[in-house]
């Protein structure tokens, strides 16, 4: 219960073939407590996807440390990831995609099928178990992505702009679904987005990153009560918060626009 994800002074510099250095993240410090939903908000190219990949162990930081405090090695994976482009395995059915992480954890087949079933029910995929990803709509595909990640019961669920490849209506529906799901499971979430409304609607805290190189500009607590209704966006408190965060990054966004 007291597990925390800690990033301490994390920097990431990419060096290309010609030796040109590109600083993606600079001195980012951040803590995510258990059962917390933290959104990392930033303009495109601010290194927020890099941040998630560092936490997932898919990249090595150039400086700084990333660790899970209070975690035990009990077979629960530290992280699982939901990708913007879904990243489902095209040769696996919905069922087999959801079971992938469990396979790698060495969960026996029967237990795997049982846990995958439960997640398939929970994410509204029942009846689609034997379909292949190409037979599903974008929204359904991302439900598979979410089910696959939740199936392994990670300490922290990493979500990399999970709904930005979807059309506006589907995105809104899935945001509501995710919120309902999260209020039920309370999985710790680190959620990357460039959408202020989305960040405020979903998260307990919004960490605002600057333009490249990404630095923490602000750490805004979202005090809106839960469970949050779908119509939250119509409330003045919501609009106020969105406006405040927009104020923080407006200048940055304008700079980005004019190059």
């Amino acid at each position, binding site marked *: 219960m007291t597990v925390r994800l800690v990033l301490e002074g994390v920097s990431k510099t990419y060096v290309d073939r010609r030796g040109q250095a590109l600083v993606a993240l600079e001195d980012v410090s951040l803590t995510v407590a258990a059962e917390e939903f933290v959104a990392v908000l930033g303009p495109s190219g601010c290194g927020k996807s890099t941040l998630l*990949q560092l936490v*997932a162990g*898919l990249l090595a930081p150039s400086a700084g440390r990333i660790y899970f405090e209070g975690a035990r090695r009990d077979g629960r*994976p530290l*992280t*699982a*990831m939901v*990708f913007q*482009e879904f*990243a489902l*395995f*095209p*040769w*696996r059915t919905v069922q087999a995609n959801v079971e*992938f*992480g469990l396979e*790698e*954890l060495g969960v026996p087949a029967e237990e795997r099928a049982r846990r995958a079933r439960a997640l398939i029910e929970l994410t509204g995929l029942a009846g689609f178990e034997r379909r*292949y*990803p*190409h037979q599903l709509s974008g929204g359904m595909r991302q439900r598979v992505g979410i089910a*696959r990640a939740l199936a*392994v019961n990670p300490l922290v669920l990493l979500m990399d702009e999970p709904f930005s490849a979807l059309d506006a209506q589907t995105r809104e529906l899935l945001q509501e679904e995710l919120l309902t799901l999260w209020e039920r499971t309370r999985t710790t979430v680190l959620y990357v987005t460039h959408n202020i409304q989305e960040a405020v609607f979903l998260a307990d805290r919004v960490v605002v990153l600057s333009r490249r190189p990404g630095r923490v500009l602000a750490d805004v607590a979202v005090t809106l009560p839960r469970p949050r209704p779908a119509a939250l966006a119509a409330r003045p408190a919501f609009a106020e918060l969105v406006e405040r965060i927009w104020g923080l990054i407006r200048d940055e966004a304008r700079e980005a626009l004019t190059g």
Partner: protein
Amino acid sequence: MSAAEPRPTDARIPVEDRTRFLRRPEHRALRALALVGLVLAWEAVARAGWVPVLFLPSPVGVLAEAWAMTASGELATHLAASLRRLLLGVAVGGGLGVATGVAVGFFALADAIGTPLIAATFPIPKIALLPLLVLWLGLGEASKVAVIALGVFFPMAINTAAGVRQADPLLIRAAVAFGARRWSVIRKVILPSALPMIFAGLRLAAGTALLLLVAAEMIAVESGIGFLVLHAGNIMATTKLMVGIVLLSLLGVLSHWGLARLERLAIPWRAG
């Protein structure tokens, strides 16, 4: 244009389908007719007596000869001998080719060692190696199977390596994000990604295998379709020779069709 339709005037310009010339109808009947037509024309030429039977036996004659050879068991002997060499060669060459392709495509070390070696040996026409293989492995079955395996190995290795390199990095990262280690990534991401390319390699290899089979069977054998063709030619048994050629053509068509079916079975996730 029907009479009721208004004539184009300056005031009204109808929009036409401008892509009409791009359409490609299937012409199914014509497809069948082309093949039947060829056989009919061949029969007609043979019957008219313009060409002596020694040079061009008629299709009906070839069919009758094939029937007689089937009844005597001669055809089955040759076919069985050839299929055995073909399947063994494709299995050995294909297995080694896929393994080499995965290694070269995935491991930097294998790439560094294997790629120059493959580049240097791939252009050698495999038929040229047949005498050498006979010298090494003797006149028996081993040298025949080996030359087919060699011919199959290269397209399989090269295509597999290309397929492995084409594997979507995003899917590899996703697998790693869910705890996959090296062998899991190879088995569950790299190999399925490479499967379409592996099948393309197999289609290429099938043609090469058939070619090398016939060449190999022209040296010191007593059975096989290649032997049948060579021997029949030597004794001017043209009808028998044609049976062999038609059989080879059938083998080619069947292997192509069989591979296409196998591919659809092995890759059920392909859209469409």
